[in-house]
């Protein structure tokens, strides 16, 4: 029997249905059900009436924003230096920056905890933000480095030729042309940080609670429907962010970027 080429996709299709589509559908279904399985909006009403959960939600977004902004502030200059042939002559330095991405996040996080312990620093909000930035910085550097590295050097030369000083070349040409990488970086940092909970739990020893933890607690305590509703709210936020950055990405440039 001849196997069609499209048949090769079947295992992947089954995998996607079982582990992506079905769980998402279940989340959506559970979010609009009460314990008995009847349709209700009560889960969402409960969320807006529980100040503690609402506060955690806003706080999580705040932390994610701070992390993203810090990653951008540290990541862009790092990416720029790495991509600059005069400042960085070896590919090894790039690898050194990317290296942390190869190590399990939990290992890195536990190492951060050990480091803070060793230096007798408090394991509070500061430690949390440090841990998050440390964890996600490579995800900001890499896409920006990628766009800068691939950028045709003749754009900068053309700008210089037309009278732009090095600083002007950066603001008028290099920065605008690297925006696709910046948007990719923002997306890759903001999306995981908003839903992270393990990092927060481990670093702050459960002192600081993020939205991910709230969801996990509810589900662990058998509140499947409420937990599903919270998860759905978070998914909506992520979806909105990624559509927004996608639009920006397209506007900035059709090419470049990491994803």
């Amino acid at each position, binding site marked *: 029997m001849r196997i069609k080429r499209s048949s090769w996709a079947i295992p992947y299709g089954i995998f996607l249905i079982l582990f992506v589509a079905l769980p998402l559908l279940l989340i959506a279904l559970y979010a609009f059900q009460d314990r008995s399985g009847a349709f209700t909006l009560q889960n969402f009403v409960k969320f807006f009436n529980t100040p503690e959960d609402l506060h955690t939600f806003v706080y999580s977004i705040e932390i994610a924003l701070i992390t993203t902004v810090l990653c951008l502030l540290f990541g862009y200059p790092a990416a720029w230096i790495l991509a600059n042939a005069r400042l960085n002559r070896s590919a090894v330095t790039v690898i050194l920056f990317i290296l942390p991405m190869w190590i399990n996040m939990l290992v890195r996080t536990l190492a951060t905890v050990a480091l803070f312990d060793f230096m007798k620093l408090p394991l509070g909000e500061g430690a949390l933000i440090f841990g998050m930035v440390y964890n996600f910085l490579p995800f900001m550097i890499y896409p920006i480095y990628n766009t800068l590295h691939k950028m045709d050097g*003749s754009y900068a030369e053309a700008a210089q*030729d*037309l*009278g732009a000083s090095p600083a002007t070349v950066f603001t008028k040409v290099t920065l605008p042309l690297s925006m696709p990488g910046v948007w990719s970086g923002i997306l890759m940092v903001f999306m995981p940080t908003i839903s992270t909970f393990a990092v927060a739990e481990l670093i702050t020893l459960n002192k600081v609670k993020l939205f991910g933890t709230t969801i996990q607690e509810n589900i662990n305590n058998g509140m499947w429907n409420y937990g599903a509703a919270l998860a759905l709210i978070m998914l909506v936020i992520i979806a909105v962010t990624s559509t927004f950055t996608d639009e920006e990405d397209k506007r900035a440039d059709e*090419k470049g970027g990491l994803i």
Partner: protein
Amino acid sequence: MAGTEEIIRIEHLTKRYDGKTVLDDFNLNIRKGEFVTFLGPSGCGKTTTLRLIAGFITPDEGRILLEGKDIATVPPYERPLNTVFQRYALFPHLDVYDNSAFGLKLQKMPTDEIDRKVRKVLKMVAMTDYEDRDVESLSGGQQQRVAIARAIVNEPKVLLLDEPLAALDRKMREDMQLELKEMHQKLGITFIYVTHDQEEALTLSDTVVVMREGRIQQIGTPRDIYNEPVNSFVADFIGESNILNGTMIRDKRVSFIGHEFDCVDKGFGENVPVDVVVRPEDIYISRKTEGEQFYGKVTSCIFKGVVYEMLVQTDEGYELEIQDYNAFEAGSSVGMHVHANDIQVMKKERVCNTFEGEVVSADRVSFLGEEWEIAPTSLEPGTKVKVEVPFGGVDLQDNREDGTIEGEVYFILYKGDRYHLTIKTSEDYFLYVDTQDIWDKGDLVGVKIDPKDIKIVKDED
């Protein structure tokens, strides 16, 4: 057009990359309003020279004077020059108008003046209707026009053009050539143009600078370069030509392809080997079997649009290319003659390979970065010697491993009865070979030399 006032003077300009000289002692004066073209094959240093003038790279030696002032330390953004880049380098995040206005905006010029100038220049390049267009949505030719507009709107003293038409198709290229020429006349700006296309160089320029291997081969008007090439490289690079080995018998008398001819050149000495160039259109061909200078048989005849291009095997065994308005079909017997003033005699650049070497032992000598077997010598090991190898003494091998050293066929010249090849060795030395075998440019070869063909002479210095 071009006045007598000098605008750029380039003195002893030299540039090296990793110890390799890519531009060697380049000297040139450019007059105000002149259209100068740097012409040569890739790697000849023409783009390097342009980039040195623009200021993107700094020279290792020499200076560039702009209106009498050395601009070596002036960064590119302060030089009153603008460049049209090979792949245009239009800013993809800006539209046509903003690309064109980029330079003027940086000069902090009033908006209405910028607007006036940009509109004027866009009209000049016929891009008025495209102001708001995204540059990436434009065709190659349109992008080219915007690139030109973006440069000339700044009214530079000199416009540098780096192979600006290379990416366009033939028809478009020819149209743009005319437009560029017109634009040059209208603007009165000095143009420095880089190209590898000899036709383009001859069409556009007031002055052509032919370059090879980082050195200037010849500077002259297109007519000079075409009619009186100074060496076989220029003759071969510019237009079609028959390049032949000859001997200058005495003043105004030269022998080649087995015959003696009158010519107009003198001052070479007597019985001196020379290169002779005859353009295909300068050989007169007829069906006469007597009363002509030499005779042969047509081996191929191709119609080229206006003329027929024929290959003729002469009775003495030389192959010549001939162009004529009349067809002489393959197989026909023909007679030919050449007028004295159509024979261009050039000094030979070399009559054999010469290298610097050192004796290693009684039967080995080192040169070209390798040791070679030679006929036994009485010279002491360590003696510095001059090594001479005739062009015909070099054996090229298909298998690179079979040679003493490896090389690449770098340049091919057909000399009527043999090929004269330039081989670039893996260590960047040049070696010249005469052969009957057909090789292609870029072929990788092994190089062998028969010990009896290696002649060594003690170096007196």
